[in-house]
């Protein structure tokens, strides 16, 4: 699928650019439309387990709805308190609702773009691409890769330690003390393992220099530019739309 084969650096930079651009705007419509476009693009051009995507999207949506609610509840004194909207049984200032909706869709737009990247990108290819296209030092890239591998191992460790501590009879202590007792064996084990991993890498001839060949060469091809071009075009179109219908507005630090 197109998104999965897209050069990861191009993809990441495009998304970062769009996020920054989107962060400058503040209206309820543009981020809402952009969220829909992003989801559509992800589903049309991405190959991934649909179920998991929803599994991730749902909490984000709940978060966004929650934000909508609290923003309205905690809002500043509005400038035009007279203009109100009926929300089911609740009468609230129109301005507050607009701000809240804009904020919520902003969050959703950021989230869906981040999901687009996460669901269609292979972590290893991303790091390889960062090295090959963006000149990330191999020492850092492979160091991160080695550390990232520890994630599942740490989860198991964590469970082990929790059970082990329970047998020793914990619980009458303060929360902070308990955290410390957890953290020390977990981190000590992780650091020792990290050190061993580093030795193993060096014994395989890894020196961290840029002089190395790659088993998988990640390149930027012509078709990779379609993504930034396409997404940029859609974004511009949305802006033109907002100018045409006169709801365009810069972000001025609304909360």
């Amino acid at each position, binding site marked *: 699928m197109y998104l999965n084969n897209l050069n990861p650096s191009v993809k990441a930079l495009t998304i970062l650019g769009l996020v920054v651009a989107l962060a400058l705007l503040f209206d309820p419509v543009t981020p809402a439309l952009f969220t829909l476009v992003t989801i559509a693009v992800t589903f049309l051009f991405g190959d991934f387990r649909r179920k998991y995507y929803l599994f991730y999207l749902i909490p984000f949506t709940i978060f966004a709805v929650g934000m909508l609610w609290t923003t309205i509840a905690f809002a500043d004194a509005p400038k035009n308190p007279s203009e109100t909207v009926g929300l089911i049984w609740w009468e609230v200032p129109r301005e507050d609702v607009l701000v809240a909706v804009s904020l919520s869709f902003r969050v959703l737009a950021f989230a869906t773009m981040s999901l687009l990247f996460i669901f269609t990108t292979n972590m290893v290819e991303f790091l390889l691409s960062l090295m090959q296209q963006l000149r990330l030092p191999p*020492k850092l890239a492979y160091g991160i890769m080695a550390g*990232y591998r520890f994630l599942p191992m740490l989860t198991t460790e964590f469970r082990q330690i929790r059970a082990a501590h329970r047998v020793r009879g914990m619980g009458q202590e303060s929360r902070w003390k308990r955290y410390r007792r957890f953290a020390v064996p977990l981190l000590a084990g*992780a650091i020792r393992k990290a050190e061993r991993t580093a030795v193993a890498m060096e014994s395989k001839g890894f020196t961290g220099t840029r002089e190395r060949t790659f088993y998988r060469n990640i390149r930027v091809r012509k078709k990779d530019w379609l993504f930034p071009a396409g997404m940029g075009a859609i974004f511009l179109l949305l802006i033109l739309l907002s100018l045409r219908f006169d709801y365009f507005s810069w972000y001025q630090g609304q909360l």
Partner: protein
Amino acid sequence: MKNWKLKEIVVMSVLSVVFAVVYLAFLPVGKVLTGFFGPIGYDFIFGIWFIVSIIAAYIIRKPGAAFLSETIAATVEVLLGNAAGPMLLISGMIQGLGAESAFAMTGYRRYNLGTLMFSGMMAAVFSFVWGYFQSGYAALAGGYVLLMFVTRLISGAILAGVAGKALSDALAKTGVLSGFALGKEKRKKHAA
């Protein structure tokens, strides 16, 4: 990157991964606090989110440790699925830069409690300035914003600086840091 040893990079990266998970775990705590106190809720525990910078810098003591560890932690958080997405990456980098700036000001020579607390406070300053523009504290009343700022400063100094040092020192006692700057310093003190 030249004067970094590979084991230092891997250890930094592992620390970042661990704390990325911790950071995610503290988000709901922040949310509960905001529920009770409004936007200032997050500021009480904001220091937690700077802690990896302080720990990595204190253990490894090389330029870049504070910045890189926070950046990696933010990246891992995004990959694990944080709703803030790419924006978080930028926040992470800015916090990291803040923490790093404190160590840079001491010329990467002093790593006492004062420096570490200062570093936590600098991270608070940077993140607050960024937050001011990005999340719109401008819309809030001036006094309230000041209160938020002071809370975050204290949180940075205590939760990142003091707690980060305590945790690293506890780790040093286990002997696993003997190959790192912190472990070596402890050994020298012990010998003296």
